[in-house]
């Protein structure tokens, strides 16, 4: 597999996120970046990854990326489509999802996610869309992958509001809770890959993307970010991955602008 030399940091993020998915996993897919990464995985190394969207579409294989979580394309290419209550009850809560793939507006050092609001709940500075499927995806899926662009506004020491549990305000939010998934096992950004520390659960950079320095990551993070003692270099995208991703995005662009 040739590695490409000319790619964007957004492409690096998507390819790295896609590689996190293994063939045969059942993945509950969030819209946006997770959806892009999950479909790239399906179109490259993981043809049998099972993609599930909260709109009820089971094992879907969209030819273009959906703009919304319930685009017709998702239903037309699905094995079957169930009601939304069934999706959350039988498939997610029923333990059939191995990985939930989420984006977020804010994330903190314990991988708690905030998609509710910036500021105070009763007088918000910015009102965000809200929880959606995330609160239960994060606790009922076997594990959780998170992908978002790295910035100090997004990576804050403590989120303004825990919409969705990572490891809680003290890193111990999952301890002793029965029937709960492992929670966030990796966070993939345009700069690096992070994993929770096995002991205290604080997010730790385990791999830097090519050309990215520790300083860049620190500048884009709102707390003193830890680096793993054996910091890896994230492998570069291959030509094939980039070609598939670019073709997918071009197809998507054509399909959506045609309407």
């Amino acid at each position, binding site marked *: 597999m040739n590695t490409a030399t000319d790619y964007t940091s957004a492409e690096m993020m998507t390819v790295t996120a896609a590689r996190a998915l293994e063939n045969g996993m059942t993945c509950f897919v969030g819209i946006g970046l997770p959806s892009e990464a999950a479909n790239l995985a399906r179109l490259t190394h993981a043809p049998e990854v099972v993609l599930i969207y909260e709109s009820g579409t089971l094992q879907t294989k969209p030819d273009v990326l959906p*703009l919304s*979580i319930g685009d017709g394309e998702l239903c037309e290419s699905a094995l079957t489509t*169930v009601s939304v*209550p069934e999706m959350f009850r039988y498939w997610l*809560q029923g333990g059939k999802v191995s990985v939930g793939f989420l984006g977020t507006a804010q994330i903190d050092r314990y991988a708690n996610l905030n998609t509710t609001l910036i500021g105070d709940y009763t007088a918000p500075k910015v009102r965000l869309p809200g929880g959606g499927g995330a609160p*239960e995806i994060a606790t*009922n899926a076997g594990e959780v992958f998170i992908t978002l662009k790295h910035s100090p506004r997004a990576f804050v020491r403590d989120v303004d509001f825990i*919409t969705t549990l990572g490891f809680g305000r003290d890193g111990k939010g999952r301890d002793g*809770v029965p029937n709960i998934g492992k929670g966030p096992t990796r966070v993939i950004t345009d700069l690096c890959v992070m994993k929770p520390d096995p002991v205290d659960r604080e997010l730790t950079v385990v791999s830097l993307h090519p050309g990215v320095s520790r300083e860049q990551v620190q500048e884009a993070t709102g707390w003193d970010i830890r680096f793993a003692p054996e910091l890896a270099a994230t492998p570069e995208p291959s030509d094939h991955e980039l070609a598939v991703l670019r073709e997918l995005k071009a197809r998507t662009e054509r399909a959506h602008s045609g309407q």
Partner: protein
Amino acid sequence: MAEILSLSDAVKRYVEDGATVAMEGFTHLIPFAAGHEVIRQRKRDLTLIRMTPDLVYDQLIGAGCVKKVIFSWGGNPGVGSLHRLRDAVEKGWPHQIEILEHSHAAMACAFEAGAAGLPLAVLRGYVGSELPNVNEQIKFIECPFTGERLAAVPSVRPDVSIVHAQKADRAGNVLVEGIIGVQKEAVLAAKHAIVTVEEIVDDLGAHPNACVIPGWAIDAIAVAEKGSLPSYAHGYYPRDNRFYKEWDAIARDRDAFTRWIDDNIIQTGGHA
């Protein structure tokens, strides 16, 4: 038994000022025509329930119909914010509205429990989330068999539910196909239900386990061709993704919004 009415008559008869209304459709089959009719009839003080408020509730909020919104994800899918929802919540325009927010799982279960005639839904949910701190309708119970702590939310039981579907037959039986969301649950959970359809046909042509809602579980059927645009109707027309993107600019600005409502909803007199 479902009566076939004009959309205007159906809304007039079943949507009262102050009512609790669920207009459902998970991205697909969103009842836009019905929402526009509610705006045209200048209904006020509505409590609106919907998992994903989408543009239809953004329009109703901006048009001043709404007192309270119960929801679980309030964005413009794939685009960004619902600016009218944000303006109402952040700045009180056109007036302050209350919000009560859940997760999707909880709302889906609450619709399901409403359809099932139960007062509550029980789920393995909200673990570690701070939503229970700001929504007093989220409680926790203990399983009498395992001792496990489980979340409980009140079931959704609207005064009126309004959904859009592909077709009805002449007896008012309705076929919903594709992404069926919580439409059936919304209809069954409500005191009254209005279903708008693309067309009325002699025979639904449904397979044995299709999502068919019997006419006797519905109050009114109204034909609303292209009644879910800019959302879509599986088998009829695609989603107008371009409009979803254009809405961002329209809704960002109060004047642009007001003009849009006036030009596209009020002035059309029901022939939008």
